[in-house]
Each structure stands twice: as C-alpha cells, then as structure tokens.
C-alpha cells in the first residue's frame, strides 16, 4: 500500500518594529503555506507543509525583545506564548539589534522560538527562515532515516540507520567497571546523580517513551583489548580501531532485566587498573579525545575515568576514589542525546544554539524526535498490517481471534487519526495516536495464536487420502453405476413392451 504523509508545521513569523522588509507581498498580518515534496520512494511520499503566519509584535513581545541578551529575551518570550508541541515562533529583529552577538544571525532558544536578524531583504530572510524551520522540526534526511525500512539501501547515507528505533520504552543501565578493586575502591553516588541530572532529562523525554533506570557495579571486568603504552605522554592509549572489540567481552557480563523487552542502553564507566593508568582514547587522527568516551549506535556508551596517581608512592592501597558524577553525567547525557539522534554539530556557523541546561534537550529538539518517531511509527504500522494481511491471505485456515481482530481495527483507526493530526499540525496528538497504533499493531501481529504450522504439500495429501478412500470408494461407485443402469433399463422397458 502506498502511504502519503503530509506533515504540517505551524510557524509564526513575528516582525519586531524596524525589521519589516520593504518588499513584503502583502501587508501584515497574513498567512502563507509552503509545500515541499520529500519523496522517499515510489510508494511513500512525504510532503511538508509550513503554514506560516506573518504578523507584527504585540506590545508585550516588544517589551520582552527589549531585554539585554538573547537568552533573557528568550525566557521572557517563552512566558508570553503558549506554543503547542510542533509549532515554531520566529522573531525577526532589526539588523542593527544588539540582541544577537556579532556574526550571529540566528539564535535558537531553549523552547520553541528563535530570533532571526533581518538582513539581506525578503528572499534571503525567507531562505533563512526555511532553513531554520527545517532545523527545528525535520529535514528530508531525518524523515528518510525514520522511514529507512522503506527506502532502498543505496539512497540512505551511512548513518541513516544508527539512531535508536522508536520504541515504547527504553531501559537505561549505568554500570561501573572496576577491574582492579585491590588498588581502587571506587565509590559513585549514582542514585543521587540519577535523581539530579538524569531524571530531569528523562522527565522531558517521558513524552517520547517510558524509561527505567538501573545501575550496577562490576568487579574484575576487563576490557578485551590491551592498551599500548605511549612513551611520549607516558600514558596508555586505546586506538580508535580497537574500540569495537572492547564492547563484547564486557557485554557478556552486563546482564539485563529478564522481565522487560525494551531496548537496553548501557552506559559504562571504566576505571582503569593502576597498572594501566592513565588511559586515554585516541581518535582516528591520533589525537586524544577530550571526553575520553565513545559510544556505539543503538547500544550505549563507554567512558574511561582516570584516577589521579597518588602524590606519594607509598600510599595505602586500595585508594578511595570518589567519582565526579557531574563530569561523568555530562558525557553520558551527551551520549544519550547522540544515541537518540540529537546532534548539534551540523549547523551553519551563524546559528547560535542556546544550551538546554539540565533539562538535557530543548523543546524543539524534543519536537524533532517526535516528528521522526511519529512518521516512523506510522510507517511501521502500515508495514506490519500489510504483512499481516498478506500472511492471512496466504494461509486460509488460520483462525483469527476476536481480540486480534479488534486490535487490527484499532491500529488502523489510530494510524488514520495520526495521519490526520499530522496534516493538521497537531504533533502531540499525532504522536499519541501513532503510539497507540504501533502498540495495537504489534500486539495483533505477534499474537501467539497466529502460528501456522500445518503445511501439507500436495503429494503428501494424495499419499494419505488415496489409500483410505480408494478402497472404500470402489464398491460405492460400482453400486451407483449399477443403480443408474437399472434405472435406465426400467425407463426403457415400458417403451419396449408398447
């Protein structure tokens, strides 16, 4: 079945006084809609529709834009507006405004608004606004990645399939690996760190999925790779090409919760042995990595935490090590963002992004996730239901239980309402509907009762039934033949006598 997605993004472009370009086609306020086609393949087409409302600022917004810095303006503006999920507001400030620092023409805030400098006339402004909308909602690449199931392999970039798949929940496990407990007695206050730093991020992401967090400490867990000693820096180095082999020996010992089926994200903190300290990770060019961490898509991340060598050589072992959880969580949460696909690195230089602080991600980044996940969910539902229908067509005698049928109906109606909400621009309800659709369709597809086991090839059917029925059939057929002959003779007799 072909699927046509229409993704509508409500955008408001607000012109501060002094920033209205001279060549506006119509006087403010007016509405406009721009449609672009992101065609994915023959069967799936995605159109993005930016429903733009151009207007001037209200008095309160002007007051907010009078703030000293962009950040203050952003905070003040956020309190004024009530932007629903998926919508964007862009404030155009005059070219001479001091809100934006030199050389920066776009400032993207923590919530769903941005400040744009009005320079270069209407066409340039429109191009910049379009680029900004794409950054804050979705791009052709992110949609193609979400629909990666349907896109032929050659068209995707190399990193299109590395983000976490949309799932109803994720399990996060923090593990502390201490291979040398005799030298280091490592303490980490993980519960406090989780409550302080991780929980706010997960609360923000709770719209996307359910998260469960656990932690463990593993002793005598070694990396599978022996690091090299580098004389120049007198430290041990792990080169980039040996990193893939580090994960597997550790993973065997990690374990996971037996009850939940959600994908697991493992974050490992490795404290190297005293004999291998300090240990640094080298990237492909040979430079040491500042974070001393690496991650594997769809799996998790590992960070190496070096312990300071003690000042005096005659110190009593084991050394007590109190892990600096802030540094560790900064890296782990950054890895969590990267695993979900929220990277901030590919933006043009004149964009300034506000740091989201302890929340971990900005509102518009959450929107990006939701756009991608909603599209992915709907695509998954349609493939699941199509293949279920094909299965049931092929195997005629599978019994479909009532609850399976009702799940299928529910999945179809939820998917339809999700697509309708997407084209109306209501991201939140679209996402919820898509989640329901996925749950129902998965439950219907993976119902244990739908197993078809009985395949009888035709020659087996003949081989079984012929020896049974043929001997029985012979006397029956002969008797029938005899009856028919007698009936015909009886019919002929009266005519013969006459």
């Amino acid at each position, binding site marked *: 079945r072909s699927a046509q997605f229409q993704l509508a993004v409500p955008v408001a472009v607000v012109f501060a006084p002094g920033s209205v370009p001279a060549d506006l086609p119509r006087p403010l306020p007016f509405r406009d809609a721009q449609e672009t086609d992101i065609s994915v393949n023959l069967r799936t087409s995605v159109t993005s529709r930016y429903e733009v409302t151009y207007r001037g600022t209200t008095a309160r917004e002007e007051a907010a834009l009078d703030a000293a810095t962009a950040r203050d303006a952003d905070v003040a503006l956020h309190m004024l507006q009530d932007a629903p999920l998926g919508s964007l507001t862009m404030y155009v400030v005059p070219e001479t405004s001091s809100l934006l620092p030199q050389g920066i023409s776009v400032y993207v805030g923590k919530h769903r608004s941005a400040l744009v400098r009005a320079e270069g006339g209407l066409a340039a402004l429109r191009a910049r606004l379009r680029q900004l909308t794409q950054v804050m909602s979705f791009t052709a690449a992110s949609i193609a990645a979400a629909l990666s199931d349907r896109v032929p392999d050659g068209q995707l970039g190399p990193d299109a399939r590395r983000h976490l798949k949309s799932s109803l929940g994720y399990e996060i496990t923090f593990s502390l690996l201490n291979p040398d407990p005799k030298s280091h007695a490592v303490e980490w206050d993980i519960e406090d760190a989780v409550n302080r730093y991780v929980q706010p991020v997960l609360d923000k992401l709770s719209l996307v999925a359910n998260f469960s967090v656990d932690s463990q400490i593993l002793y005598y867990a070694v990396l599978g790779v022996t690091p090299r000693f580098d004389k120049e820096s007198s430290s041990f180095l792990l080169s980039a090409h040996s990193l*893939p082999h580090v994960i597997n020996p550790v993973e065997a010992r990690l374990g996971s919760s037996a009850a939940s089926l959600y994908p697991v994200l493992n974050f490992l903190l490795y404290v190297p042995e005293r004999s291998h300290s300090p240990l640094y990770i080298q990237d492909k060019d040979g430079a040491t*990595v500042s974070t001393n961490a690496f991650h594997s898509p769809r799996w998790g991340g590992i960070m190496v935490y070096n312990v300071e060598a003690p000042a005096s050589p005659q110190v009593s072992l084991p050394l007590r090590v109190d892990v600096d959880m802030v540094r560790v*969580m900064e*890296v782990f949460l950054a890895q969590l963002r990267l695993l979900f696909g929220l990277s901030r690195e590919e933006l043009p230089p004149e964009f300034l992004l506000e740091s989201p602080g302890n929340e971990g991600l900005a509102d518009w980044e959450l929107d990006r996730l939701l756009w991608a996940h909603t599209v992915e969910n709907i695509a998954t539902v349609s493939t699941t239901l199509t293949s279920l229908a094909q299965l049931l067509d092929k195997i005629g005698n599978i019994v479909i239980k009532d609850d399976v049928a009702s799940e299928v109906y529910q999945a179809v109606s939820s998917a339809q309402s999700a697509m309708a909400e997407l084209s109306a621009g209501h991201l939140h309800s679209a996402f919820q509907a898509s989640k329901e659709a996925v749950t129902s369709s998965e439950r219907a597809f993976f119902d244990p009762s739908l197993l078809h086991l009985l*395949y009888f090839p035709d020659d087996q059917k003949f081989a079984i039934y012929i020896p049974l029925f043929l001997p029985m059939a012979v006397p029956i057929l002969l008797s029938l033949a005899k009856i028919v002959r007698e009936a015909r003779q009886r019919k002929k007799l009266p005519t013969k006598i006459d």
Partner: protein
Amino acid sequence: VCTSRFWFNYRHVANTLSVYRSVKRLGIPDSHIVLMLADDMACNPRNPKPATVFSHKNMELNVYGDDVEVDYRSYEVTVENFLRVLTGRIPPSTPRSKRLLSDDRSNILIYMTGHGGNGFLKFQDSEEITNVELADAFEQMWQKRRYNELLFIIDTCQGASMYERFYSPNIMALASSQVGEDSLSHQPDLGIGVHLMDRYTFYVLEFLEEIHPASQTNMNDLFQVCPKSLCVSTPGHRTDLFQRDPQNVLITDFFGSVRKVEITTETINLDSDLPGFESKLPQDELATEPLKYAEQLPVAQIIHQKPKQKDWHPPGGFILGLWALIIMVFFKTYGIKHMKHIF
C-alpha cells in the same frame, strides 16, 4: 539448533555445541545466542565420561564445559517453539533469554543439524519442519525487519533441499550435502562408542579456529571448506538472495560481533549548583497487616465434601447411531414379525 535426541545422535549435539563455542569465542554473548538442544548427552547414563561432550577424540575438547547456556532444552525443542522464536510470536511470559530480540540492523546466524530428508528436517523423531515452512518463517521475519542479513547453515543429509525454497532477500545459505546425498559423520571414538562429529561441521570448525575477532576472512573461503575429497558429500551454498558480494562479507559479520563505534565529541553542560532533589521514594512504608501463610491443602474441606452432582446428559450421537445400526441389522436379519416376541 540440534534437532535430535538419543545417545546415538551424540554427534549432532557435539556439532551444535562446537559451533556455539566458536561463536562465543568470537565475541557473541549468551544474551544474543538462542541454543536449542535436547541436552541429553552429558548426563546420559551411557556416557562413559559424564558431564562432558567431546568433539574430537584427539583434541579431547570438552565442548560442554561449565558455561553452556541452553535456552530450549529437551522436549522444548519443537518445530513450534523454533518457529515461534524466529517469528517472534511468543507468549508474553517467555523470558528475555528465550526470545530473539533482533531488529533491522541485526545479522543472524542460524545453524541447524540433525536428520533430514528431501525438503524436511526431522525434529526429535516426532515431527518435521518443511523447507516451505522455514522459507515462510524467514519471510515473516523479513516483513517485520527482524534481520538485516541472515546466514543459514545446515548440516544434515540432503541439506541443500532446505534452502531451495527461500525467497526473502538478504539470505545466504550453506548446506553440507546436495539433494540425494547423505552427510557423513567424521570418526567414531572407541572409548565413548559413538561418532563424535559430522564431517562438514568438523572442517568448518577447523576453519573457524583460525578466525579471530579482527580477522578479514570472507565468505568465499567458507564456501571452499570441506571439498568432496574430505567430506564425501558435496557442500552447497546459495547466495542469489544476498545483496552484497560474498567476497565482501566478513566471517565475523555473522560469527563474531564487531560493533560500529563513534567517538563522543560533544558534551552538555550541567549545572551542578541546583539544590539537591528530594529522593522520590516514599519515606514511610505503609503499615500492612502481617501476612499469613495460606493453607496449601484444605484437608478438612476435602474430607467432608459431598460428591458433586453431575448433570445428566442424554446419550450422544455416536451411541445413538451405534444402537440404531445394531437394531436395524437385527431386524433386517430376523424379520420384523419377531418384534412382538421380544417386546
């Protein structure tokens, strides 16, 4: 998957366990392996060396060891369970270790051994799986994107018939013998009294012994393993459904597990001066009633129970039909005029 049981099928268990060992050595953890065995060899009363399963009489390598994790053992190795694992239609109470939690980026290796015939594989002497069912199961997996690429290895008699019917993309298959040929076993061990391994698997394992996690050997080398002179049967393979050229497929893509990693270059800035959060756990536990242990068998109730009144049902159709037949035959034979003598 080892699909046979009983002592004389020792070699199938040894096959499977040897492949299991190699795969674990190359880095795949137990959480990513589903092992289905009848598991009746190590503790079999006929095993002269209990708690061991040997694979080669000279190497004396005990492939059973002490960290074998069998997920489906003994009578749980059925066609139904195998298909359930593949397609994912598992009852919700199944633990994680018994499920195939793969996604569209997973490469899956399936190794099956046992007794087979033209188009079917025998499961534990009581049922069979046909090549059509297997192909359909793989198609179900493909529809749900439960695999990225799949390597199917089968070591049974007439093994090539099992992969003839595959039609889903990205499947590569290897078999130990063609249709009409039997796969032979390698050598008997006179101490244990049975054949220890099958030839094809033996040579595959010799090949795998030289693979280490960083090795670059590709699939074409695996296809050359066990030529007819050593194996007596002709191993076959099928690569037409596979999108990549077998030359470019590394053995470790399937037998080992080498992940893609990226260096983390971004960090976020956390504000550590925020006031500490209150712990979210409730402070006091609710006072509950002391719990009593429920009586397991209410003996007093059972003794004094009256027998349940069963409802009376009229006799069923079969009984009625039988009696009708008997009466008809009786009257046909003796004539209807005798009725008055009976009643």
